[in-house]
């Protein structure tokens, strides 16, 4: 058992033990789970009805399918290009959708005042925030899974088409593709949590702008670290260090380069970003609940 897995299991046991041993927590948890789930379900149902997400997914699917038209490339180049381009599409569109889904989750409820009828019922504010977040996670999971399934389908189809060609070296690398897509989803989940946090205190526009900045900075964290290490001014160094610590290291979830270049991927390398991500999401959602709890709606 790896230390990371042991840590996760330990964390789970501690949480369960805390809930079970503190009688006053049990009713709150028992009450919270169904409320969170109902809010998550209505969030998903609402997104499904609005059909905007479906339209974007269809667009991405069309982009992925159109990638098969590059038949002038060698099979190996084609597979590299398909995997790299396909995963980029999954990640980029996934993150873009995450930004636009999450940035509107809470502000739209406040703007449309649909939150009044909910908070006037026995629903705690943290339940509402978590319900919205879980709903967003489900929506984004459906999107990422759909796009990944299409990408895998395209890769398998292409594999079938070129396998009879002489000197065929097409490698669909399905395991790697799925792994990279799952890791992209976790990056999306972390970013979504942060967007939900910002949206509890800022307007939709500010949330969207902040989300793009965080996405950019989070994808360049190793550069930020280098810059911090070599900064001469103490203020710059301190600022860069704070950014490095506070902003999630989204690039740690990015395995596109390894997968598309058929480099060996250690699945164990996923543990560190995963654990960091879980911890980060937990802290961020606690903060989002605290901020929303104090917000006048």
């Amino acid at each position, binding site marked *: 058992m790896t230390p990371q897995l042991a840590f996760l299991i330990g964390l789970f046991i501690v949480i369960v033990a805390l809930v079970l041993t503190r009688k006053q927590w049990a009713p709150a948890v028992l*009450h919270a789970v169904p409320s969170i789930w109902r809010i998550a379900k209505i969030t998903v149902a609402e997104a499904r009805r609005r059909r905007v997400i479906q339209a974007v997914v269809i667009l991405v699917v069309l982009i992925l399918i159109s990638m098969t038209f590059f038949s002038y490339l060698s099979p190996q180049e084609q597979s590299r290009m398909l995997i790299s381009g396909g995963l980029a599409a999954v990640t980029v569109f996934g993150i873009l959708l995450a930004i636009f889904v999450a940035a509107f989750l809470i502000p739209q409820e406040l703007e*449309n005042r649909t939150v009044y009828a*909910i908070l006037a019922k026995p*629903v705690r504010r943290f339940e509402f925030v978590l319900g919205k977040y879980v709903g967003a996670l489900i929506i984004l999971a459906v999107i990422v899974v759909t796009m990944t399934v299409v990408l895998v389908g395209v890769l398998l189809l292409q594999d079938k088409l070129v396998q009879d060609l002489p000197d065929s070296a097409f490698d669909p690398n399905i395991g790697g593709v799925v792994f990279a897509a799952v890791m992209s989803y976790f990056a999306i989940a972390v970013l979504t949590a942060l967007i939900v946090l910002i949206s509890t205190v800022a307007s939709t526009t500010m949330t969207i702008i902040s989300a793009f900045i965080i996405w950019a900075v989070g994808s360049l964290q190793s550069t930020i670290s280098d810059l911090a290490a070599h900064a001469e001014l103490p203020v710059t160094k301190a600022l860069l260090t704070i950014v490095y610590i506070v902003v999630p290291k989204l690039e740690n979830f990015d395995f596109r380069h390894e997968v598309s270049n058929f480099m060996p991927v250690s699945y164990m390398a996923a543990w560190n970003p995963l654990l960091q991500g879980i911890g980060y999401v937990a802290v961020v959602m606690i903060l989002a609940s605290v901020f929303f709890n104090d917000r006048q*709606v």
Partner: protein
Amino acid sequence: MASGETVLQIEGLTKVYRSIFTPAGVKAVDDLNLLVRRGETYSIVGPNGSGKTTTLKILLGLIFPTAGTASIFGKGIADLSVREQIGFLPEDAYLYDVFNGEELLNFYAGLFGFSKKRRRELTDELLSLVGMQANRKIPFRECSKGMRQRLALAQALVNDPELLILDEPTSGLDPAGRHQMTRLILELKRRGKTILLCSHFLAEVEEVCDRVGIMYRGRLVAEGTLTELAGAPTEIVITTSGLGADTAKELAGHAAVLGVEDGTVRMGHESEGDIWSVLEEIHRVGGTILEVSRPRPSLQDVFVRAIRQDTTEEAE
């Protein structure tokens, strides 16, 4: 009017909105004291910006008071269990517009933890109560204003609340819609619900409420039953026909008559003893008596008087 157990009590409630542009703050609610008893229908009336909705939002925990306290069924408003017994109809019916009535009620009932079977029963009962049974599948955004308002009332009733808080329930409705909503409120009153209602449709308030509180600039400037607020009748009004200009002038000369205008003879309330002599005089000059009444001031009159009085006191 019931005079039983206290359902809602507000003491010294104050809400000040502060911003960088108004560091001193704007007082939306100013030292408000209010008490609503079980089974009572209490209405807060007041012009826009008088603090009615702010008060309701504080009661529902949507915003927080700057000072003062409020309790519902003896518990502080922060206590989540209080909301098990409350139903809230927001102004302008803000519900998820992509869902139909059936789906909406199923969702809101789910927030109270009802089973699937109970949710289905409740949905049927409530849609039938608000007259939306036939339109249960119409998405909220395609509903008329009246239908929306009725659905919003239905969602406020999913938990069979003891206290109903209605914010401008007839706002934006046409006369038929207003009539329907007023009937529904009266039906809920008949079922024993305690109702706190905010409105500036005074006719509706007069029809449904036991007690009225008039809010102006965040303060409760008058409170009481309609009779208490209106006070005793101040005039006796005799409606006649067939009075000519000369005869009207002649009547106006009578000691007990305050004035004659368009066939309406007004007498001072204290001149009750002179009524027969005035009636005889009308008869003598050839007028026909259609009606004799002692009208009380309407809520509209009371409302205007209370606000005017408050403004005058402030100026002084």
